[in-house]
């Protein structure tokens, strides 16, 4: 680059990232950020945003490509290197020391022998002025709300003298007022010369806040344009990248219109995560819940299942109100496939057969109290064959299975238990293509057999492919409802990210 010409703060060129498993997460990405610039990074799930951030933060090494920082090529081999250069990354799950005070957290990375509380307090005041925020320096982090923690993490970043602040979905779990605080901080930082890479699913925020937008799809940059020249339409189109694959829907048999209503949810509320959700499902119907991170989609499924003790509102099965406990839900024929299968769905140290039978143990027992291990194994063998679970046999430990196969074991747990209402939370997250197709087919099969299925999925194209009807959830409310054949990926993204002006009309 000839001297005298404008030099970008950050310039990544041709960055490729291939994971040891062979997955190509990034295939030649260019990203540049100028000093003081706010750049939006958007893309669907799996587009490579997280990987790109990790490469930038020094947490992953790029397989190929160059990173230039202030015009000089870099080979960051650890997050510390990137931080020392001036890249501060604030991840979704904020790693703060919960028992320490705000002050101690903000200056956690500070080295050196001498530091006085008074000195640090003055410094913190300076930082707070810079971003236009107030917080009690001596409160411990565990006393703070999620939004306040987010701000502490941002303060931590700029306290290290960051020239580039990377924010990964900073507003996903924040309330409205807290989001405004983050926006204000971003605007002020940019004015004072700190660049911001702003990663978000919320396109209204992106259009509002950024100077330029880089769109990733399938590990490539498909757009890199000034925000001023972008419309919501072009943005959504480049994120989605293709017209909806309506062909996939032909296989769905619509349930008869007179099918009985199995599940009725009325005015379900829980804190500010769920703000009065009502819906109903007929036997044989598959309904998708389209919502972005923080929209309340997991909370909705958990509340229906009775797993949220703070929830209010009624859930009816076959017209009968359901007591609020998972035990009552299971007894009434509800099944939950949770998003975090490792910590909520499976017993990793148990064999497949003990996992598959746990929800339906009395039925597999002599005198309903003495489990018949042979029948349990038989069921596990059936499940392995029917769901095409790749495992050496029913004695394989579930913790040793791959994501897709483990997920099938979660399904197996419910398939045989006589469940009629299935609540599926991100059933295909982190699963390879083959297993994904199996699970989609399985969901259809369930519906054909008269079950009602409620699926939450952040990949809207998949949601449309599998469901008859989609309700759009945003900030804990149903903002729209669409028949799958009459909407598109594009429209759902707009509705869920709060762009579509039709939203008000639909709600």
């Amino acid at each position, binding site marked *: 680059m000839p001297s005298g010409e404008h030099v970008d703060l950050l310039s990544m060129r041709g960055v490729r990232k291939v994971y040891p498993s062979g997955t190509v997460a990034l295939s030649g990405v260019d990203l540049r950020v100028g000093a003081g610039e706010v750049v939006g990074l958007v893309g669907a799930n799996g587009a490579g945003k997280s990987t790109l951030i990790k490469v930038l933060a020094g947490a992953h090494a790029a397989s190929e490509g160059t990173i230039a920082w202030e015009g000089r090529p870099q080979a960051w081999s650890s997050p510390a290197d990137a931080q020392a250069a001036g890249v501060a990354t604030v991840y979704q799950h904020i790693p703060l020391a919960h028992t320490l005070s705000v002050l101690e957290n903000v200056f956690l990375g500070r080295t050196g022998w001498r530091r006085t509380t008074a000195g640090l307090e003055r410094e913190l005041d300076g930082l707070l002025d810079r971003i236009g925020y107030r917080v009690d320096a001596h409160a411990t982090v565990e006393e703070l709300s999620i939004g306040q923690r987010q701000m502490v993490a941002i303060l931590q970043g700029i306290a290290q003298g960051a020239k580039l602040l990377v924010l990964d979905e900073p507003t996903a779990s924040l309330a409205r007022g807290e989001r405004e605080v983050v926006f204000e901080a971003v605007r002020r930082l940019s004015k004072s010369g700190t660049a911001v890479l702003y990663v978000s699913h919320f396109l209204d925020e992106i259009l509002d806040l950024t100077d330029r937008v880089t769109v990733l799809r399938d590990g490539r940059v498909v757009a890199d344009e000034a925000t001023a020249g972008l419309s919501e339409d072009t943005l959504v189109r480049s994120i989605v990248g293709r017209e909806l694959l309506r062909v996939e829907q032909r296989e769905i048999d619509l349930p008869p219109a007179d099918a009985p209503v199995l599940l009725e949810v009325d005015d379900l509320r829980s804190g500010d995560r769920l703000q009065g959700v009502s819906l109903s499902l007929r036997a044989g119907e598959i309904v998708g819940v389209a919502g972005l991170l923080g929209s309340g989609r997991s909370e909705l499924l958990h509340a229906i299942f009775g797993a949220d003790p703070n929830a209010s509102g009624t859930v009816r099965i076959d017209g009968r109100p359901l007591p609020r406990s998972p035990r009552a839900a299971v007894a009434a024929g509800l099944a939950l496939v*949770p998003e975090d299968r490792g*910590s909520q769905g499976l017993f*990793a140290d148990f064999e497949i057969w003990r996992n598959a039978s746990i929800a339906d143990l009395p039925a597999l027992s002599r005198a309903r109290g003495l489990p018949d291990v042979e029948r349990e194994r038989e069921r596990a063998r059936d499940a392995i064959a029917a769901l095409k679970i790749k495992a050496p046999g029913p004695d394989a430990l579930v913790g040793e299975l791959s994501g897709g196969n483990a997920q099938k074991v979660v399904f197996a747990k419910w398939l045989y238990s006589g469940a009629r209402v299935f609540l599926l939370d991100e059933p295909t997250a982190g699963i390879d293509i083959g297993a994904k197709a199996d699970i989609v087919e399985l969901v259809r099969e369930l519906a054909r057999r008269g079950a009602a299925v409620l699926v939450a999925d952040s990949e809207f194209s998949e949601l449309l492919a599998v469901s008859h009807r989609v309700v759009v959830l945003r900030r804990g409310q149903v903002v729209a409802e669409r028949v799958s054949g009459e909407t598109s990926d594009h429209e759902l993204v707009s509705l869920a990210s709060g762009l579509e002006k039709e939203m008000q009309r639909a709600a």
Partner: protein
Amino acid sequence: MQREKQRRGVLDLLKVRDLGIVYALILLVAVLTAVSAATGRPNYLGGDNVANILDQASLVGILVVFMTIVLVSGNFDLSVGSIGALSAAISLSVIDERGVVVAVALAIAAAAAAGLVNGLIVQVVGINAFIVTLGTMTALRGVVLILTDGRTITAESSSSRTALQSIEAGFWTVNFPVILGLLAVIGAGAAFAAGHRGRRLAVLGGGGAVLAIAGFVGDMGFRYAKPVWYMAAITLVAWLVLRFTVVGRRLYATGANAEAARLSGINVARYKIVPFVLTGAAAGVVGVLYGAKLGATNPTALNGLELTVIAAAILGGTSLFGGSGSVITSVIGALFLFTIANGFNVLNLGANYQDLIEGVVLIVAAGVYTVASRRRARAGQAAPPEAPAPGAAADGQPAAPAEPARVEALRG
């Protein structure tokens, strides 16, 4: 079922994770027997010495069964020693006036209530079990001090003494081989009738028959103190419940992953609280037995018992993180500890070294278990689950065509 035998180390082949303490006990007994023989002492494995070890281990053995249940459920109980002392104090101070039945019932009820308090605070309030039971351990020891006013309590009346002795003292002779053999034959027959086949059943039935005949012909009676039989009966019942019932399975599931258990419809609160109540009641029983043995109790009775019990459970391979463990190996862990103590005694090695050895053994045991689990985890990773075709894996039959199988599956 095909076994996927990869190259596995000695630790895996011997199932050290499950049976390590059994090998350790056999080794220890072998060494002690050899040393006693070489030094011209009486046979270490002689009936009297074995009866002695079992008698000494019986109270800890009873408690370790329930400690294992608490540990499996994912909790922890430090208060058993204090609860036992409370129970002993209550039973001995009531027995002269109210008689043995009321005294024992009251003592065990109070002990179970203390366990319930532990369970409720841990589960409902949500305080860590270590802290809660550390608190109740201290507080209940205080209650014992208040009850006894710091003095030794003795059962005075001779009728009380007789009643207490009838609970604890004395021996029962049981022709164990006959009973065990007949049980094995009946069990194998029942399983055969229920449609099970296989070599294991034949071995069980045949072995049982041989054992029964040998016991009958050889008149092999086992004469042990009553508490030993209590321990044996409790261990057997607890093992059967944990191993073969829905309740047992759900207990393990709750300890392995409470959230997944809750979302599978298991009443997690029940499976977290009841073990504390049972452990409290068992500590009550142990307290009564202790008081009955001595006819007296003092404020420091059973002090430190909880640590021996927990050490025995750890030696038996029970995980402190819940979801795994076996009451049988835990009881063997207790036997191991008391065999060490007994060995020091019999061989006249300075008792000064005993604690040192026990402590080192505990850490070594935990180390072996940790290494064995890690190896097992690694063996699992090294064997990617893609090996045989699904379906074929089951029992060597060709894989069923997927589609009809699925339809079949969903019919259930």
